[in-house]
């Protein structure tokens, strides 16, 4: 019996003919990829937000330019550039040290880096907004109370920034999750790629793309529920509402 004649439940199931396990593993990889790129984006985004507010003009301008470029260029182009450009770049760096070309970096690394670089530009905006939301008088009051920079950051700035930043960060996360599908073009077996492979080898594209949609919907709605939970916890903790 060819795979084209198998009923949908057998194809999507966890049996020997089923793609269920592969699809679920793909969803797990999508989640891991999104988490990795979100983390990269958070670290770089925080640095960019700090650089934007820096007194060194060139640093602030550099961070602004980064944001304009990354938010004005398609994400797909960034993924493609890293995917095709990384081996050459790595060979060039290795060449500087007189080492042989190391070949292509792992797809997970280039993928999460590409999505993370884009995510950083958006997260920088979010963090900047959060920093601006802390009243200046409070920082001055903390200074007057003799708090050091670390204590000031931990007790006064951070809790308020977190409170302001969580809802828009949830939005960025949703975009991250969906942008991670672009990494499929590098061949990484995340959910989008897996559904393409399954659609191709069984010749049932409608079925497998629909299954992938259901899994993506599960990921996006589950994570938005998690964010809502954290936000509720956060506003309770901040003593508001």
């Amino acid at each position, binding site marked *: 019996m060819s795979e084209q004649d198998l009923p949908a439940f057998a194809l999507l199931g966890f049996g020997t003919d089923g793609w269920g396990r592969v699809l679920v593993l793909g969803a797990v990889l999508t989640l891991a990829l999104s988490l990795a790129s979100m983390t990269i984006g958070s670290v770089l985004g925080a640095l960019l937000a700090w650089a934007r507010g820096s007194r060194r003009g060139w640093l602030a301008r550099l961070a602004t330019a980064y944001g*304009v*470029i990354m*938010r*004005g*260029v*398609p*994400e*797909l*182009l960034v993924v*493609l*550039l890293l995917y*095709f*450009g990384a081996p*050459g770049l790595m060979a060039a760096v290795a060449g500087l040290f007189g080492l042989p070309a190391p070949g292509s970096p792992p797809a997970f690394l280039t993928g999460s880096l590409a999505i993370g670089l884009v995510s950083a530009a958006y997260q920088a905006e979010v963090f900047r907004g959060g920093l601006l939301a802390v009243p200046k008088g409070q920082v001055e009051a903390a200074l007057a109370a003799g708090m050091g920079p670390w204590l000031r950051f931990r007790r006064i700035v951070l809790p308020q920034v977190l409170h302001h930043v969580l809802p828009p960060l949830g939005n960025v996360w949703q975009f991250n999750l*969906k*942008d*991670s*599908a*672009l990494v*499929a*073009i590098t061949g990484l077996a995340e959910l*989008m790629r897996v*559904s*393409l492979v399954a*659609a191709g080898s069984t*010749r*049932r*594209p*409608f079925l497998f*793309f*629909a299954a*992938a*949609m259901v899994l*993506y*919907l599960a990921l*996006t*709605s589950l994570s938005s529920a998690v964010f809502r939970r954290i936000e509720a916890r956060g506003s309770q903790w901040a003593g508001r509402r």
Partner: protein
Amino acid sequence: MGGAAMNADVTFLADTALAIVRAVPVTLGLFVASAIGASLLGGGLVAALTAGLAPVRGIARGWIFLFRGTPLLLQIFMVYYGLAALGPVRQGPFWPAFRDPLFCAGLAMTCCCSAYIAEVLRGALAAIPAGQIEAALACGMGRVTRLRLIVLPQMLRLALPAYGNELVMMVKSTSLASTITVLDVTGVAQQVIAHSYRTLDVFCLAAGVYLGLTGALTALLRWAERRLDPTVSDGAGEGASR
């Protein structure tokens, strides 16, 4: 020898730039068509969200949930490959359209972005103070007059910044059409790379084109925002936007 190599470089870059610029109408056409489609559909979705019939509201909510919760790339593949595998589509009267990758990309983008635009418009609608609607009712305005004079002008102004962001996102999203063989700016760039193996310069040229497009759009939107700002255009603004 160095001179000749540089000449070849310049020729290659000029040829590539020309090829990429020639693809701009495809990118721009895809953007304009799906922006118009998505805006109309988004408006319809908001109307459906405020409808009296519960099933109509449910369909609109389901539509927004589906298209906002899944990647556009997957939606494009679903329309281009997924629907093509279905008998009714293959044998139906619209098959010539569904066989065209450009149409499929436009259709997927229209559906996807309509969901985002509907959310933007819904937010703007909710931001209009209820007192104004009540005042319009008290003045004896009918449904259409109310919509035309009170609701729509303010919605336009309130929604414009977020709506503009969606439009910029749409310009960038058009690049996904290249994954289903559409030769837009990204598609042509990939084609050139496949022949020349020169990744960085070609992608930078393409990125420059997109930056130009998004930059021009942003400038246009900022101009429109200023035009619609009641504190600038005339003193009669009632400051109801907050």
